[in-house]
Structure formats: C-alpha cells, structure tokens
C-alpha cells in the first residue's frame, strides 16, 4: 500500500511538472509589452528630481532602473527555461538567491500590489466555506432520494425523478442561477442578489454569521440544486447495482425485514462508489463554482480567476491554475485510494 502511494506520488509530481511547464510556456509566449520598462519610465517621469534631466541621461536612468527591476523579477533573460526554473525555485536569481515556489514565493500580483498568497487567502477561505456547505446540503438530499428511487424502481415516482434529474443535469448552472435570482430576488424578494454581507455592517459573533448565511443562502441553494441531478442518478445507479447482488437475494430469502435489507445490506455495498464520488465531486466543485461566484459577486477563487484573467495579472492566474491542477491530481489519488479502502476486493497496489 505504502509503495503504491509513493509510486503514485512520484507520478503525480511528474505530471505536475509537465503541466506546470506547459502552462508557464503558454503564459510567457503571449506578447505583453515590457512591463518593467513602463514602470521604470513612470517612476522617472513622476519624480521631480529626475524630470528635468537631459533626455539622454533620463534614458540611461530609465534603462538602469528597468534592469534593476528585471533583476528583481528575474526576467532579465529571455530564456524561458531559466525563467521556469526560477519560478519553481531551482535556479538562482541575479543576486545568487533562488526565490521560487520552493522558497515559498508564489509570485506577486501586479493588480493588487501584494504577494499572491495574500491575495488568495480570503477568496480561498470563502470558496472552501461555500463548498463544504453545498456538499453537505447536496448529500443530505441526494442520498435518501437516490435510495428511494432505486428501491421503487420503475414506479411512477421513479420515472418522474428520472426525467427531472435529466433536466437537472442538462441545465447549465448559469441558467438555474438566473432563474432562481428572478424568482427569489426579484419576484419574492427573499434574498439579496449579490454580495457577501450587508454593506458596512459591524456585526459580531452569531449575528455576523447569520448575516453571511443570509447572503450566501441563494448561491448555496443554486449550487445544491445544480448537483442534485447528477448525484441522484449516480446514487440510484449504484443502489440498483447493489440491490441486484446475490447477497441481497440471500438476505431476503433469510426473511430479513425489507428495511434491514435495504439500509444495512444493500446500502453498504452501494456506498463504495458513492464515497469516491463524494471525494471527487468535492474537489471538482472548486473549479465548478467559478460560475456561481461570478454571478452572485462572491469574493471566491473563481471570481479572482476571472478578475485576474481580465486584467492579465499573470502570476495570480498561474498560481490559481497550478492550484486547480494540484487539486485535481490529489483528487485522482484520493479517489483511487478511497476505492481501495472502501472496497476490499479492489487491490490498488496490483
């Protein structure tokens, strides 16, 4: 088992390196203009002491300043490979010190004028908060629903649910969001349409939490609703699979109560695929919430990604991208391991 995990981890690192290299190359192959030069020029022009200098001296000064900035940013070379290694932290900067990701430097946001880590902190917290809530809500609804439809397979209720769930997973998130905003914000006026709390509030403790939940209610409802279709179908399918097993027939033949058969025997077997689904789904939801955050104006990772993309704040985008990649790779590993843990018949280290 340990050997398998190690092997997978090594492999994960390899994939991560390939992907990060690809991403880095894609990024820096885009013509962006000489940012350092512009900044240096701005600095010189805005400084009264320098502005009156003759043109030639001024140019020399600008060039000097540009180079200085490039040394600091590690962009004085056009060799992308060197830049990539610097970004990772394997290659020293001009002053001989490596300042890459390995050293804990994840980049600097040009828009927020802050370290990327600081920029990302608050949105990350919000996204995790929303996602945990949405996952719990969705599970609470879909599992009983899936079991019920599987047990009453072929009944009228099941057939309606089948059609409803197809509709559920065929509808894109933004349509559901717009519809819900129209119903609950515009017509019923139950919830606010956007924001993360009453503007200018100074609530504390429970009241602050309540206010936050009031603002998050609609996004959470939409997220839960969006996942109902796919999840219910999945739970139903695995439950049907489990109900068709020989052991269920045996259990029924023994004369066990139907309730025991379903909840104790069948459900345990159905749980195996569901567990893996939950893990994968929870990780996948991070990038899935891009849409929700954008529509409801929540300060989350997805919204940050869109803002950064529109402003071409490369280092933030690169960091977010690598974050998503890492998450997805970790997700795959966890799914595989969970499969092995949940189902003793599957031997992961084979």
């Amino acid at each position: 088992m340990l050997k398998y995990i190690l092997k997978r981890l090594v492999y994960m690192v390899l994939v991560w390196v390939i992907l990060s290299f690809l991403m880095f190359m894609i990024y820096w192959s885009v013509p962006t203009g000489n940012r350092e030069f512009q900044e240096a020029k701005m600095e010189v022009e805005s400084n009264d002491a320098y502005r009156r200098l003759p043109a030639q001296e001024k140019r020399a000064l600008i060039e000097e300043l540009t180079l200085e900035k490039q040394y600091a940013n590690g962009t004085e070379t056009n060799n992308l490979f060197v830049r990539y290694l610097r970004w990772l932290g394997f290659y020293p900067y001009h002053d001989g010190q490596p300042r890459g990701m390995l050293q804990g430097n994840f980049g600097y946001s040009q828009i927020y004028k802050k370290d990327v880590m600081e920029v990302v902190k608050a949105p990350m917290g919000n996204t995790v908060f929303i996602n945990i809530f949405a996952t719990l809500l969705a599970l609470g609804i879909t599992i009983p629903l899936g079991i019920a439809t599987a047990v009453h397979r072929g009944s009228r209720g099941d057939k309606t649910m089948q059609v409803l769930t197809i509709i559920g997973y065929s509808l894109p998130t933004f349509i559901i969001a717009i519809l819900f905003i129209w119903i609950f914000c515009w017509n019923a006026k139950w919830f606010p349409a956007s924001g993360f709390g009453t503007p200018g509030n100074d609530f504390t403790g429970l009241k602050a939490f309540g206010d936050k939940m009031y603002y998050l209610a609609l996004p959470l409802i939409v997220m839960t609703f969006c996942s109902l279709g796919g999840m219910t179908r999945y739970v139903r399918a695995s439950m049907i699979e489990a109900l068709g097993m020989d052991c269920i027939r045996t259990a029924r033949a023994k004369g066990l109560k139907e309730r025991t058969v379903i909840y104790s025997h069948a459900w345990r077997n159905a749980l195996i695929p569901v567990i893996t689904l939950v893990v994968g789904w929870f990780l996948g939801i991070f990038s899935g919430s891009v849409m929700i955050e954008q529509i409801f104006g929540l300060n989350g990772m997805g919204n940050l990604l869109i803002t950064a993309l529109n402003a071409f704040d490369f280092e933030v985008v690169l960091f977010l991208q690598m974050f998503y990649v890492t998450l997805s790779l970790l997700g795959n590993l966890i799914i595989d391991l969970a499969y092995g843990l949940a189902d003793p018949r599957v031997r992961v280290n084979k």
Partner: protein
Amino acid sequence: MAKKKDENLNLEEQKLEQEVSDVQPVQEEQPQAVLDEQANVTEEISPETVAESSDVQAPVLNDANKQADGKTKAKQFFKKLGHVCKIVGGWIVRMIWGASKIAANDFIKAEKKFEEAQKAAEEEKALEEQQALADAETPQEDGKKNKKRKKAKLTDVEEIVSPGKQYVKAFFEKKLAVTALVIVIAMFLFVFIGPLCMPTYTDLYKASSQAYLPPTVSMLSLPKELDGHIKSISSSSFFTVGLSDTGNIYIWGVTKIGTTKIDIEKSIPQAVKDAKIEYVAAGTDHIVAIGDDGTVYAWGHKELGQYIENETDIANQETNHNIIMMPEDLRMGGKIDVANVKKLVCGNQITAILMKDGTVRVWGNTNTYRNASKFANKGDKFYDIDVTRTSMYGVTYDQKLLVNYEANAIKLKYKMNDVASADQDLVLTNSTILSLACANSNLAILVQEASGKNRVLFSGDFGEGLTDIPALGLTRYFTQISAGAEHYLGVSNDGYVYAWGDNIHGQLKISEKGDGKVSTVYAEAYQSYAVSSDNKLVEKSGLKGYIFGTDANGASVFKRLVNGGRMTLTIGAVAVIISSIIGIIIGVISGYFGGKVDMFLMRVTEVVGAIPFLPFAMILSAIMSKLPIGEDMRIFIIMVILGVLSWTGLARLVRGQVLATRECEYITAAKAMGVSELRIAFKHILPNVISVIIVTLTLDFAGCMLTESGLSYLGFGVTFPRPTWGNMLNATRNLTIIGNYWWLWLFPSIFLAITTICINIIGDALRDVMDPRTNKR
C-alpha cells in the same frame, strides 16, 4: 465541472465492471460478429489488393507526365477518401441493416441471376422442345419447385434480426426518446434553415429607439375604431399614436416605457380624453397634443425637459442647463393659438410647434438636439420643420433654403444641377421646397420645379443595401412624402404608394400598392400606413413587433437566437467530432496494442484529464484574445480547445471495450489469416465498439454545448457581436436586467435547455437500448 467528473467516474466504474462481467454479452454478439467478419474478409481482400497494386503503379505512371501529377494525386486522395467513406458507411449500414441481411441480399441477387439464366435456358429448351413437339409439363414443375425453395430461404434469413435493427426498434418504442429526437431534429432544422430565411440579418444591427422592448406583435395593429376616421398617425419609436377626425386619441404598440413602467396609453390624462384634439405627435418617450381650444397636453417621460406638469418639474429642470424649458405660456395646461398652428413635431425628448406665421416654439433636451435653441432664438421664419434622431431641420419661409445651423449637418449630395455646393445650406433658385421629411440619419425634400412638377431630393448617408427611390416616369410625380426611421413613403399624383430606403422589417412591402385611392401616407418609425381621402386605411406594412423582444442594441432576440443557435450547435458538433476522433484513435490503439504503448497513452490521457477544464479553457481563450487573430479563427480555436480537452473519457471507455473484444475468437481468426494489426484494430474491433461510442458522442455533444455556453456566458468564448445562446445571456448579469427584461434571458435559456435536455434524453435512451446489462434487468 462537477457534472463532467460524475460522468467520467460513471464511465470508469462501468469499465471496471465490464472487464469483470461483460464477457457474456460480448459472447452473445459474437456469432453476429463472426458472420460480419467473414463477410468482411471475403469481401475485402480482392478489391483492397487491387487498389493497393494500383497505388504502387500510379507513381511510376506519374513520373512520365508531371503535369498530370497534381491531378492524379488529388484523384488518388479522393479515391482513398471515398474508400474510407465506403468503409464507414458499411459499418453503419451493417449496424442498422445487419450483416446477415446484406449477405441475404447478395444471395438473393445471385439467385435471381441464376434463375434468369435458368429461365433463358428453359425458354431455349422450350423452343427446342416446341420444335421437337415434346410435352411442356416437366419444366413447369421444375419452376414451381424452384420458387418454393426460394421462399423457404427468404423466411430463413429474415428471422435473424441484426443488433442494430434491434436497437433502432427498441429505441423507437421509447416514446420520450422519440419525442426528444423529433425536437432535436426540429431544432437543428430551425437553426440551420432559419438564418436562410433572414437575409437581412446582421450581427451588428443597431436601433437605439428599439432597445429593451418586450415581446409584442401589436406595433402595426391600428385600432378598428380608428379606421375610417384617420386624421393623423405619428410615431418615433415603439408606440404609435393615432388621431381620429372626431378628436380622439388611440395608442398602439409597446406602451410601457422602459424600467419606469409608465404606461403611455394608460396615463393619457382624463382632460385629453374629454377634449377634442386637433394635433398630436409622439416622441420617443412622450406625447404632445393640442386641443381644439388651444390647450397643450403632454404625458409620458418628463425628466429631460419633455414637458412641465407642475412646480416640482420646473424646479427639477431648472438645474439642468441642457434643457430648454417649455415656454411659460404653454406649460401646466397653457394655451396656444390653435388656428395659427401649422405643424406639431416630436423627436427624441424634444417638441417643436411650427406656427403659420413661420415662428417656431421649441422645448426639450438640447443634449440630443444641439441646434434646437437656434430655431427658436434666431428669429428666422420657417415654412416647414422636421427632426432626425439627432438634429433639427427647417425650410425657410420663402421655400428656397434648407436650414440646420450646424457645421456637421447632413451633407447635401444631390444629383441635381441647380443645387448649390455640397456642404452649404441648400438654396434652390428655380424651384421651391414643398415639404421636408427627416428619417434617423438622412432626409428627403419634396421640391416643386418651375414646370409645376414635383420631385424628391435626397440627402444623407444612404448606405448600401437600401432600396433606391423609384422612378415614376414622365407624367407622374409625388404629391406628398413622409419619413420613418430608415425608410420613406411617397404618394404619386395618381394615388399609389411608393416606398424606398431600408426594408429590414418589410416596411417597403407597401410599395406600388394602393389602387389609386391613396391620398396621404404615414411612414412612422418602422411602419408604413397609406390612407385614402375618406380617412380609411388602404394599406399597411412594416414591423409588427418582436416575438421574443429586443436586446440592449434594439436587435431582435428571435433573430439573434436563430443565428446564435447555429453557432452553438456547430461549435458543439465540431468539438465532439474532434474529441471523438482523438478519443477513438487513442482508445483503440491503447486497448489493442497494450503493453508499453498502452502505458504511455494512458499516462497522456491522465495528464490531459488532470487539467481542470473550465479554468484552463478560460485561460487559453483569454490568451488568444491577446493574439492578433481573426474572430473566425478564434472561434475555430475554441472548438479545438473544447475537443482537445474532452476526449479522455471516451478514450478510456473505448480502451476498456477493446480490451474485452480483442480476446474474441474471430480476432484470432483474423490474425491467423495474416490481416495487419492496424486493420484488425480499426476494422474488426472498432465496429463492435461503435454502439458505446455513439452513446458517448450523444452525451458529449450536450456537454460541449453547455461548456461553450458557459464560456461564452463568462465572456471567454464567442464574444459580441456574434451571437451564441451562451453569450446572449452574458448581458443579464445584474438584478435589474434579470428582473425588468425577462425576455432577454428566458428565451435563450429555454432554447439551450430544451436542446441539451433532449440530447441527453436521447443519449440516455440509447444507452439503455445498447447496453446489454441494462437490458437484462
């Protein structure tokens, strides 16, 4: 994204189980497959080898004459292409029709030939026998026996039903799936044939007066009570006001103005209903009327100086320096000398009254009409006035001069000799101006020449695609002209309507109609009305309304929906084709060859699968917007991105299926016959996996459409002005738009949702039908 993951997991799980339990169904299908292959192999070998040998020979021939080189190469290419098509077509036919049926058909053909030959032989025999005068009973008996044998064979063959046919039959038994299929086909037809019916559609269409109109078809429906009593019709945007000869006012079209929810029809003041109205004119958001006692009434919007109703309006408007306030003697129910009024004109937030003595009373927003104050203040006398969308024009009292007071007035480009220089005020020497008609960005004047005949002169930016003014011949001339937003109407002296200008809403359909009864024409906004001398409506045409409303640019949501649907479906289809080609090739190779190839390809699949889809596509799209490439190229690249990122699921699925299929006996047989590995992989194994592929393709198609819509919605896919169902929703980002303009998001959502739901239902039904495991339960 989460959904995508679910699908993948689902498929993976299926694969796992299929490896364990699916051996049985494969075996069930096997006899069929063996039949298939045997027919296949025997069929193929001869034409294939022949084709190959000709391939080898061809280059030798080509060396001889190099000129024909390109041609023969192209020929060869098409030959190969045709060959590939034939093979693929063969699979599909075999899947639906069944190999046994084809074999049976071949057999029947051979039988027939044999029979014919036999008949001919019999006839010959008969002839011989007739000649020999022998009895003719024995050959007849033979024939009967023959027929019996044939019938027996036919029934034998028909009892075997191919799996493809079974699938089709089972599919058509599902009512829901068939309904969904019909809807999807209808949607495709609607979206691909629809644009052909709208040759006038352009992505960049703009009509600022038509922005944010709700769905309506009432814009041309002149009230019945008004017909027969029409005194005047006036409109400059989306509602039309009609005045009857009894002094009543009728309003039709979209009567609710914008978000303020002022209903211009319901807010008609009671005083107006009671009074007998002499003059009425409609602006873009207000209406002004003059009663027979000279009282000036106004209703509608008033924030930008359209009119003054009470003291607070005065206080509000005084602070805004761009407003010419309503004259003091007219405001708040003031009176005007009605006998002296010649013309009442309303424009975009402006009102002008021309008096018979040539003076002009003007009030309203000078932000839109910067020269308006000059008409009131300069003291010039006018014979006629009219307004375009941004400027006011007048004809001097001696009917010789067209006045605008602006440097950037519509340049006068007449094709006439006696007209003064191009960018000066127009001065006519030999003729007089009878009337002036202003459209949104151009104008026409009716001129009476010294000979007594009228003719129309024309000016402004008269763009391409607009109909020219019709030639009336020598004896006929226009007696009256009128201008709408983009088109003109004229009445000829013998009572016919003629129309010219923009025909995007069918305004010009009225042209050359009227049966000689027309005396007055009203070209109002996008509608045309022709009225006879006894105040009856003779003809009308033009914009009836927008069944799905209009967007922020005044473009019809319906038209954009149809054209956008074509884009959405095309992107979805191309992306799916790309992803399936990659997925199938990688899946089959990896599954069939196994070992290191499998290992490598599966690692590649995992790398691609690990890329988080939505963020990555967004990033690539954002980067592309920085590159200097055209919009078409960008859209194509979006298709490729979608395709290249979504093939992993299919590749895994195909690999799993191929792994199970390659152990079958007929593959061993094919190997023993010396068929090449690639051919076994793609020709012998792939057709047996094709049912799974079709299911995945269907579901992926819906997936790709949704992803494209999502990307476009976020602004990273296809961007404005090109419409897709996703980016039509892009505009609906805030609550006020979602709430007030529900038609902007509802209709695209419905179309997108119905299409994806139906495609998913079809895919689901296909899976049920084709997956033997679900059949069993």
